C-alpha cells in the first residue's frame, strides 16, 4: 500500500474528504457570522443556536407536518430568519451605538434561552433524521466509500458560499450594503432605508446558519446542544480568516476542516484543539486575521 510518512494514503485521502465535509459546514457557518459582523458590527453569539434551530425546524417539519427534506431546506432557513429578524428588531437594534460587547452578551443570552427551551421540549438525547431518498447510497472512490449525502453537502454549501460572496462583493445591492456600514447617514441621504437593510442582513446571516442546520440534520443527531459545541470552533475560524472578511471566512472554514481531518490521521487526540492552536498562532503573527484589513 502506498503511504506518506508511514500513514497509508487511502487513510489520508479519506480523512481529507471528511475534512472537506466538515469544512463546508464551518465555511457556511462562519460566512454568516462574518456577514453579520462585517456589516453590522455584532458579534453574534446566537449563531450556534440559530444553526440548532434550523436542524430542529427540519426535524419538526418532518415529524409534525410531514414536510420532506427539500421543503424544509427552503422553509427552515426562512422560518429561522424571521425569528432572527424579530430578535434584531426587538432587541439588537437598540445596542448598535454601544460597545460590541453588549451585542455579544445579548446574543449569548438569546442562545441560552433557545437552548433551554429546546432542551425542555425535546430532551438532550439526539433525534434521528433520515437521509432524503434521492441522496442515499454511496460513491465508491477507490480509497473510501463517500456517502452521496456528504458529497451533496460539499456541493450545496460551496454553492451557497459563492453566491453570497458574489452578492456582497459584486452586485450593486452588495455595494449599497457595504456603503451603509461605512457611512450610514450618507447612504440614508441617497434615499435608502438603512435600518431595513440592516435587519435584512441580519436575517440573511441567520438564514445561512439555519441552512447549515438543515444540511447537518441527516448527518448528526438533532439535539439542543449541537449549536454550542460548534459555535466556538466557528468563531475561531472567523478570527483566523479575519473578522468580517467574507472570503476569509469561506477559505479558512474549508482549510481548517481539512487540517482538522489531517490531524485525525497523525495525532487524533489533538484534533479538537488544532483549530485553536492555529488561531493563537495567527493572532500573534497577523492580529487582523489572514484575510483581514489592518485597522
Amino acid at each position, binding site marked *: 500500500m502506498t503511504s506518506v510518512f508511514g500513514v*497509508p494514503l*487511502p*487513510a489520508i485521502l*479519506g*480523512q481529507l474528504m*471528511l475534512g472537506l465535509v*466538515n469544512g463546508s459546514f464551518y465555511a457556511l457557518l462562519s460566512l454568516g457570522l462574518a456577514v453579520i459582523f462585517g456589516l453590522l458590527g455584532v458579534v453574534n453569539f446566537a449563531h450556534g443556536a440559530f444553526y440548532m434551530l434550523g436542524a430542529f425546524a427540519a426535524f419538526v417539519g418532518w415529524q409534525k407536518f410531514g414536510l420532506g427534506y427539500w421543503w424544509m431546506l427552503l422553509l427552515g432557513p426562512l422560518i429561522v430568519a424571521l425569528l432572527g429578524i424579530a430578535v434584531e428588531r426587538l432587541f439588537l437594534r437598540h445596542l448598535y451605538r454601544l460597545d460590541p460587547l453588549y451585542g455579544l452578551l445579548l446574543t449569548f443570552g438569546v442562545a441560552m434561552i433557545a437552548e433551554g427551551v429546546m432542551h425542555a421540549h425535546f*430532551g*438532550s*438525547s*439526539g433525534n*434521528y433524521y433520515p437521509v432524503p431518498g434521492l441522496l442515499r447510497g*454511496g460513491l*465508491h472512490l477507490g480509497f*473510501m*466509500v463517500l*456517502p452521496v449525502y456528504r458529497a451533496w453537502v460539499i456541493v450545496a454549501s460551496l454553492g451557497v458560499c459563492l453566491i453570497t460572496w458574489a452578492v456582497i462583493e459584486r452586485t450593486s445591492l452588495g455595494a449599497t450594503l457595504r456603503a451603509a456600514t461605512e457611512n450610514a447617514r450618507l447612504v440614508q441621504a441617497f434615499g435608502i432605508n438603512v435600518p431595513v437593510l440592516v435587519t435584512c442582513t441580519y436575517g440573511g446571516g441567520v438564514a445561512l446558519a439555519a441552512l447549515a442546520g438543515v444540511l447537518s440534520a441527516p*448527518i*448528526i*443527531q438533532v439535539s439542543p446542544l*449541537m449549536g454550542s*459545541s460548534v459555535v466556538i470552533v466557528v468563531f475561531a475560524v472567523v478570527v483566523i480568516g479575519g473578522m468580517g472578511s467574507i472570503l476569509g471566512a469561506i477559505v479558512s472554514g474549508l482549510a481548517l476542516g481539512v487540517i482538522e*481531518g489531517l490531524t*485525525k*490521521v497523525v495525532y*487524533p487526540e489533538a*484534533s479538537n484543539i488544532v483549530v485553536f492552536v492555529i488561531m493563537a498562532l495567527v493572532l500573534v503573527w497577523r492580529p487582523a486575521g489572514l484575510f483581514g484589513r489592518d485597522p
Partner: protein
Amino acid sequence: MQKSILTALCAVLACAATSPARAADGQVVIGDIDDLSGVYADVAGQGAIEAANMAIADFGGTVLGRKIVLLTTDHQNKPDIGASKFREWADQSGLNMLLGGSNTGVSIAMSKVAGAKKIPFFAIGAGGASLTGADCTPYTVHYAYDTTALGNGTASAIVKNGGKTWFFLTADYAFGTQLQESATRVVNANGGKVQGAVRVPLGAADFSSFLLQAQSSGAQVLGLANAGTDFVNSMKAANEFGITSAMKPAALLAFIADIHSLGLATTQGLYLTTGWYWDLNEETRAFGRRYFAKMNKMPTMDQAGYYSATMQYLNAVKAAGSTDPDGVMAQLRKTKINDAFTKGGYVRADGVMVHTMYVMQVKTPAESKYPWDYYKLIKAMPGEEAYGSQPDATCPFLKR
C-alpha cells in the same frame, strides 16, 4: 430589605431541616437515579421506572405494613449529580435502597456514597466490572451484566468463529475502557490479536472519521465498545461508509432497543451478549407482554433487571423483617434468585449477581417471524463461565 431577605432565608432553612422527619415516617423509600434524557435513556430510563413500579405493584404496594415509595431523578451522565442526589435522598428522604441505572462513571461515584451511608445499591445498566472489583462496597449488588461477562460472551464467540484481528471503537470513559480491556483479554486468550483502538467522546455527533481509522487498520473485526445511541450511531455510520462490507462489527453491548431502532436489515448476523431476552421461555414472554402493554415496546435486559432487583430487595426486607441494611444484604446473599429474569442466580461475596448469560445472533429479516423476534440463541453461558468462578480479588472489603 436586608431583614426580609434574612427572614426568607431562615424560612427556607427551616423547611429543609424539617423534611427528613416527614419523608421517613412509615415508608420504605426506593430511589432510582438514571439517565432519563441522554444516550442511555432508551435502554433503561422511563422504561426502568415503569418496571420498578410494576414490581412494587406486584408486591402489593406495602412491605412490613409500610408503604413503598419510588423517587426518581436524572443524573444527566454526570457523576457529581448522581452522587449528590443520592446523598440528599439518604440524608433527607429516608432512602432505604437505591436503583442506579446506566453509566459506569456515575455508578462508581454513587457506590462510594452507598458504602459511606450503608444503603443497599443495585447497579443495573452500568457495565464496569470494577463496581464489584476495585470500587466494590459491602452494599453494592451488580445486576444484569458487567464488562467481564460481555467480553466472555461476544468476544470469545467471534474469535472462535474466525474473527482473529480486532480494532476497537471505544467510548472514552470508565465503561468503554473496562469493556475494551475485558474483550482484549478474551481475544488474546483465544489466539486473536488487537490491532488498535480509538477512543471516542461519549455522545459524539459524528463517528465517520473514527470509522475510517478502524478501516485503515485492516482488522477483521470492528469491536464496538460503546452503548446506547453511541452504538446506534456508529453502526449507522459504519453502514453508510461501507465499512461493514470489509469488517465484521461486534456489539460488545447492544440492547434490544438498539436493534429495534437500527432494524434487522442493518444488524443481521451481529453477535451480542445479553443477560435477558423476552422470548426465552413462557415466563419471560409473560413479563415481556405485560411490559409491552404499558410501554408499547419490549423491555431491555436493564428494564427486566429493574423489575427483578426491586422484587428481590422487597422479598429480602420481608424475610429479614426490617430494612436494616446489613440484615437485608445478608438475606440477599443467602437467597437464590428464581424469577422471570433468571433461574438459580445468586449474589456473590463481591456483589456480582451471578446468572446465566446468553450469546445471541441477530436474525435476518427473513428469519424474523413476528414483531420483536430479533435474536437466535447461540449459547447459554452458565453464570460461572460468564462472570468467573471466584469473587474479584481486587475488591477491598474482601481482603480484610
